[in-house]
């Protein structure tokens, strides 16, 4: 229970940190713009500019501020990319730069300080908006181009203010870019940690479940074996036919239960044919049987065909293992004339012998292949070999690689 509570706490903290960072970043352009606009509007008032000029500047700045805020909100992972707004911001920025010489010409704006303030006010919103959207290199290029443009515009009517504007706008772009980048990086690290923690918690549950299943298997499995054997023993000892029938049921039930528990512990996994072939080779070679795998010109196989041929390999190889005289085994996968997949398992150990106790697996294999249109034949081949041959017609399903168990890819933006 403690774990769950800690996790919930933690998750709320991440959400809180996200909200706080978003508020902080969104409010920053407004604070900066307000701080710059105040002296600018005061200066316009002193110079006797009409009220409409002040309102115009304030409106344009507000539009820019809204654009910057929206872009920041997008970068903190909440809204869609604001394409239209970004276009509007670009237009407003160009318009503002274009209006600068006009404002200077009317005499409302004068002095290096005022020009620098105006230029910085113009570049702040684009800097905030673009820093999270562009890569580092592209952002720096845009920053340089924007700063040079502002400096050139100012320089065209006031030579003295040009270099100062260039220096201050470059500095503004750089500082804002760095601030935004580090804040977003910090947030993304936080999200990744959160996701990792969640994955870890899920893994821990899965691990614990498996461990429990294994313990269950070890303890219960042992006792199930004893129950099955004891009932078999009683069955042999009793003469009563009805009791014998009942005891057969008990044995069946116990063994199938044991098998089911084993399946749970083993878990579900899919394997592809290549893995099966490698597994077949390694098992055969452990038994001292040389194994050759030929798959030149093998057709591309769909998942169904791979699964079906996997059965064939497992059954065929188990069969080869049962012949202790086998020394070599060849597994050949090829494309038949009609495009069918052709799997041939040849060994030099002699004929098929039904597995003792377990019944013949090859009969069952034929039944499993039938729905896929496959055919199976087996019998002695040349040079005292034994040959298992399977034809599987091509399926329409495209080749799919075996699916790995789903894992959550770490994302740096997909926050809930």
């Amino acid at each position: 229970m403690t774990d769950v509570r800690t996790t919930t706490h933690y998750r709320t903290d991440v959400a809180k940190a996200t909200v706080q960072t978003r508020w902080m970043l969104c409010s920053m352009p407004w604070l900066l713009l307000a701080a710059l606009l105040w002296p600018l509007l005061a200066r316009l008032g002193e110079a006797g500019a009409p009220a409409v000029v002040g309102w115009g500047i304030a409106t344009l700045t507000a539009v820019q501020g809204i654009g910057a805020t929206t872009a920041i909100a997008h970068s903190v992972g909440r809204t869609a990319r604001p394409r239209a707004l970004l276009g509007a911001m670009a237009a407003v920025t160009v318009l503002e730069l274009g209006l600068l010489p006009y404002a200077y010409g009317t005499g409302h704006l004068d002095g290096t300080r005022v020009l620098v303030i105006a230029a910085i006010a113009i570049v702040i919103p684009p800097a905030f908006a673009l820093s999270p959207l562009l890569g580092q290199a592209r952002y720096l290029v845009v920053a340089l181009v924007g700063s040079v443009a502002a400096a050139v515009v100012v320089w065209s009517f006031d030579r003295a203010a040009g270099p100062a504007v260039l220096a201050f706008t470059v500095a503004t772009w750089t500082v804002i870019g760095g601030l935004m980048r580090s804040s977003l990086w910090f947030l993304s690290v936080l999200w990744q940690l959160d996701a990792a923690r969640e994955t870890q918690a899920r893994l821990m549950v899965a691990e614990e479940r498996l461990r429990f299943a294994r313990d269950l298997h070890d303890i219960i499995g042992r006792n199930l074996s004893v129950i099955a054997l004891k009932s078999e023993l009683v069955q042999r000892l009793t003469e009563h036919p009805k009791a014998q029938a009942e005891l057969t049921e008990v044995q069946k039930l116990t063994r199938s239960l044991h098998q089911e528990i084993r399946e749970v512990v083993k878990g579900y996994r899919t394997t592809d044919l290549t893995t099966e072939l490698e597994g077949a080779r390694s098992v055969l070679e452990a038994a001292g049987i040389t194994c050759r795998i030929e798959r030149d010109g093998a057709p591309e196989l769909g998942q169904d065909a791979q699964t079906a041929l996997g059965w064939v390999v497992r059954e065929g190889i188990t069969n080869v293992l049962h012949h202790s005289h086998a020394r070599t085994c060849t597994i050949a996968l090829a494309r038949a004339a009609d495009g069918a997949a052709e799997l041939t398992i040849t060994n030099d150990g002699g004929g098929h012998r039904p597995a003792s106790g377990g019944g013949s697996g090859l009969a069952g294999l034929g039944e499993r292949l039938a729905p896929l249109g496959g055919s199976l034949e087996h019998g002695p081949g040349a040079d005292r070999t034994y040959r298992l041959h399977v034809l599987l017609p091509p399926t329409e399903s495209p080749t799919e690689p075996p699916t790995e168990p789903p894992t959550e890819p770490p994302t740096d933006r997909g926050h809930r």
Partner: protein
Amino acid sequence: MIRVLLADDEHLIRGAFAALLAFEDDIEIVAEASTGPEATAMALHHRPDVAVLDLQMPGRDGVTVARELAQALPDCRTMIVTSHGLPGHLKRALACGVTGFVSKTVSAQELASIIRTVHGGHRYIDPILAADAISAGASPLSAREADILSLAADGAPILEIAERAALAPGTVRNYLSSVTTKLGVENRHAAAQLARQRGWI
């Protein structure tokens, strides 16, 4: 008459098997053992035709006993009975000359028939255990490494693994570092996860 040695540390199972096999006319239980060393000693003394060995026994495991018997008593056929179908165990057993590999879910009647098969010079591998081993692909891990790694899979610290495997911590560390190198992963947790996914542990 097939002379059989039964070795299993669980006396209930061993006892039931012994009682049931006694019903078979052609099978005689000449010795019973409950540990690995005992099984080896009994086999050397009684020279059975077939030794039926539990995989997990105190002292020495069934496969180790089978390897000893293959050298000391070349005429004695060995069989492993197990409830653990790890691919590494089957391969290790086959490499040690074991000719029977059977699941513990087997009935005594089936076991008797398998003992006859093995005694006749054939091999018998439980189809499900064989299929599991084949599906698992070619595991780069040795059986011992797989054992140690499965102990590590629960996230247990080295000292605890060493205690459970009855090894020195340094030895455990060596096994685990060889495992991580073989699997090309960063640490033992990643190794355990990968190995479990592939069915190697």
